């Protein structure tokens, strides 16, 4: 079996703080993995290891058998968590999408890059965003532009850090359709961080429950068991139910 991502005894320490410890993981090629865990669990850190942005303090990370920092960039389509978008940087949406193919900031777009970028924007139903300024886009529109940027290079591995943030309900359903279609057409693997357990249950083939260690990894029904969730979050049930129970106690 081919593995898209392998973690072998990986730990990450920031100074004295251990963000990830003893991670062992094999993600089969073609899987749709939802990564869930509380804030600070190390989810984004885990994606950054796969991207090669971060070196593990110990252990190693392989991407399709290649050490992560040496894996070709064109294999990876990345949507970062916080769009640390510098709103003072003058740019059009289509330029950001084109960085997905060019892997540089384009001084001038070639006709081929322009066409491919428009095509990717069409895929996320954002064609009309192409010539709008990035700084003026709404959060949900910006998400779609980043998604188009990830798609345009036709990656084998999509790394999505909370991609549904800022999207409305329809936009979110749409995004899952786009992801599933892309996956079908390109035989791609998806690693997606989310705080939405329901979405994980519905769309993922595998769920990784993380809290500095691997709490559970497997098919959604197994990984999202009460036992795993209790160990990861300290309680069971959807956050909505939790806030309801707090409210009802006051009443």
């Amino acid at each position, binding site marked *: 079996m081919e593995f898209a991502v392998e973690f072998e005894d990986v730990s990450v320490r920031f100074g004295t703080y251990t963000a990830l410890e003893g991670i062992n993981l094999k993600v089969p090629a073609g899987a749709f993995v939802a990564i869930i865990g509380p804030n600070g669990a190390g989810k984004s850190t885990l994606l950054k290891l796969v*991207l*090669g*942005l971060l070196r593990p303090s110990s252990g190693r990370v392989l991407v399709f058998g290649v050490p992560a920092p040496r894996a*070709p*960039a064109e294999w*990876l389509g*990345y949507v*970062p968590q916080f769009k*640390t*978008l*510098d709103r*003072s*940087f*003058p*740019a*059009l949406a289509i*330029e*950001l999408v084109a*960085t997905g193919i*060019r*892997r*540089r*900031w*384009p*001084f*001038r777009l070639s006709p081929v890059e322009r066409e491919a970028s428009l095509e990717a924007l069409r895929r996320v139903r954002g064609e009309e965003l192409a010539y709008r*300024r990035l700084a003026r886009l709404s959060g949900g529109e910006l998400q779609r532009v980043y998604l188009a940027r990830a798609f345009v290079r036709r990656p084998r591995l999509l790394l999505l850090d909370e991609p549904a943030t800022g999207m409305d309900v329809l936009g979110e359903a749409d995004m899952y359709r786009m992801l599933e279609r892309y996956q079908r057409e390109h035989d791609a693997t998806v690693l997606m961080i989310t705080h939405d357990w329901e979405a994980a249950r519905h769309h993922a083939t595998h769920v990784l429950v993380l809290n500095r260690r691997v709490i559970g990894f497997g098919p959604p029904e197994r990984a999202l068991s009460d036992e795993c969730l209790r160990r990861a979050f300290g309680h069971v049930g959807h956050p909505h139910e939790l806030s309801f129970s707090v409210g009802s106690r006051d009443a």
Partner: protein
Amino acid sequence: MLDLLSLPFMQRALLAGLLVGATASYFGVFVVQRRMSFLGSGLAHAALGGVALGLFLDAEPLYVALPFTVLIALLIAWVRERTELGGDTAVGVFFSLSVAFGVVLLALKSEYTADAMAYLFGSILAVTPADLGAVALVAAVTLLLFPFWERWAYATFDRDLARADRLPVLFDDYLLTAMVAAVVVSAVKVVGILLVAAFLVIPAATARLFSRTFAQMTLLAVVLGVAGVIAGLIASYLYDVPSGATIILVESAFFLLGLLAVRKI
């Protein structure tokens, strides 16, 4: 006006001014977007140390100041990268150090104080063939490095995306910092140490007001930088006042007009 252009020193002045106006404004767009303005003014002061060292050694001041300032720039970048001190702290330390160094050297050879004034305020009519050579060298390297525009721009937009695309962001940063230092030194004779930071930043800031893309901003900044130099030099000649000051006044006027124009839209 035409007989003005037949004077060799005026030809040198114009040529040096044009090259320096173009290169400084070109790097100015990165300085503005990366919020490195303070680095620009710090490097100008570091250049003072380099010029003083050149005068002290009886060498061509710009040719000593060039490597000196580039070295200081790399040290600043290194300290910023290796420690948790902010970039501004690193700049502050090295900039005062260089100025102190320069002042001491100048005091040891007091007959050069008048020369030092030309560097403080800029004296374009005193641009020597050797100065023009330094300016041309920096301009040529800038042109040669044009392919880096796309890498610097990418990392300016988002460092992590650039790194994930396997760009050697750290190396690129050092190169950019070194080039900003070189450009600052090459502009010192034209606009003076005191005003060179403004010279770097104002055309880019004006260009930013009117640009929808970073490429547009870059081109517009270069045009504005060159136009400011030409207009400023002519004014400086006509009214017999220091060139650096007139150039900065013209560029500031562009900026203020730009602000007014943008508010109307």
